């Protein structure tokens, strides 16, 4: 199984029946493919719907039905449309149970950098700052390293998306909880040793009872 699939599958296990969930562009989108059959979650797309369905076949494409990544999507039965003010009222108001998003960097205190590399990449924060501040549970889903460099840091060096809002980090190597006392390694990939994870992480880790990830 490739890294992205490992991550998406593990994140999917965090979702509960009835949850309202927002999945960021890219890797987090894959989580939708791994939600267990007995769990029914409602996916929000912050551009204006709840009840995000799969991509349409080409003959069913509606140019006025897109997700936040400008891809054509569908609406599930029971879903509905709303405007941007309502959408972010729902997000900022704590009505989203889980938001899953990627990272350029994430640190031991749960601060996240995901929207700008000064002088290089300035796409903008879009809805990410509101999502991270507003959602009840914030999960960062990211490959453990970028070109060999750890993405989990003692402190983010890039401009932040939000300060100390991340609750959980899922990578292909392990699962991490951000607690008051620091960053806990709580699960590891069965083939990866705790030592390897410590080595590839640029932040102090608290290592207690470490379970094995289902992969």
């Amino acid at each position, binding site marked *: 199984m490739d890294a992205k699939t490992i991550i998406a599958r593990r994140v999917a296990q965090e979702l509960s029946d009835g949850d309202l969930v927002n999945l960021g562009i890219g890797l987090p989108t894959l989580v939708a493919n791994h939600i267990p059959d007995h769990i029914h979650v409602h996916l929000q*797309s*912050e*551009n*204006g*719907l709840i009840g995000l369905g799969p991509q349409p076949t080409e003959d069913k494409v*509606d*140019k*006025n*039905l*897109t*997700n*936040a*990544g*400008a891809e054509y999507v569908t*609406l599930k039965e029971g879903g509905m*449309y*709303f*405007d*941007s*003010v309502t*959408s*972010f009222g729902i*997000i*900022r108001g704590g009505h989203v149970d889980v938001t899953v998003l990627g990272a350029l960097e994430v640190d031991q205190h749960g*601060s996240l950098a995901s929207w700008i590399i000064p002088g290089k990449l*300035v*796409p*903008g*924060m*879009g*809805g*990410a*700052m*509101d999502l991270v*501040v*507003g959602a009840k549970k914030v999960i960062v889903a990211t490959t453990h390293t970028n070109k060999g460099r750890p993405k989990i840091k003692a402190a983010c060096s890039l*401009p*932040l*998306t*939000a*300060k*100390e809002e991340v609750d959980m980090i899922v990578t292909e190597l392990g699962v991490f909880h951000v607690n008051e006392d620091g960053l806990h390694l709580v699960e590891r990939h069965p083939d990866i040793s705790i030592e390897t994870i410590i080595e590839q992480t640029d932040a102090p880790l608290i290592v207690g009872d470490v379970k094995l990830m289902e992969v």
Partner: protein
Amino acid sequence: MDKTIDKQAFMALLHDNQTIMVGGFMACGTPETLIDWVVESGVGNLTIICNDAGFKDRGVGKLIANDQVKTLIASHIGLNPEAGAHMSAGTMQCELVPQGTLAERIRAHGAGLGGILTPTGVGTIVEEGKRVIETDGTKYLLELPLGADLALIDARVADRHGNLVYDKTARNFNPVMAMAAKTVVALAHETTATLDPENVVTPHVLVDHIVKEVG
């Protein structure tokens, strides 16, 4: 009172140095015909308020490509490389605003509020230059209202009074912008005698002019 105007009357509404709000999310729900006419008018030095920079050849991206935009206020510009190029060349300024904050700032203007306190952006560079207000031990940014001279919005149907409804995720920023500009022009893809009073999204009193989409 017939609010329908033709191209000529629309062109007369345009001036150099205007602040123009444009509905749409990655060009879904942007009134392309009106944007084409703004391009044709050649008015310049514009301040454009839009969720994003659109694409090079869709949405407000067309105005950027045509060098008509002095300042862009948006949450995201990543899908339009022209926007980044104009910023690097110094020919366009860009103010990046978190998407939920952008929606609330426009709403604040339209609803007569002096500003709103949001947790979004606290502890990030979005905080720079803003007043931080603490209530009950929590820090918030004071975000100020954002209004415009002109709002260009995209409606699915207008009735003969100017009441509007929108289409799926093409709704996005259109309704809130209809509250926040001195002059509001809606491009209507269909017209009808009357809409169901329970389902009107934008009341006619907010709409100054209707342009009927042809073809």
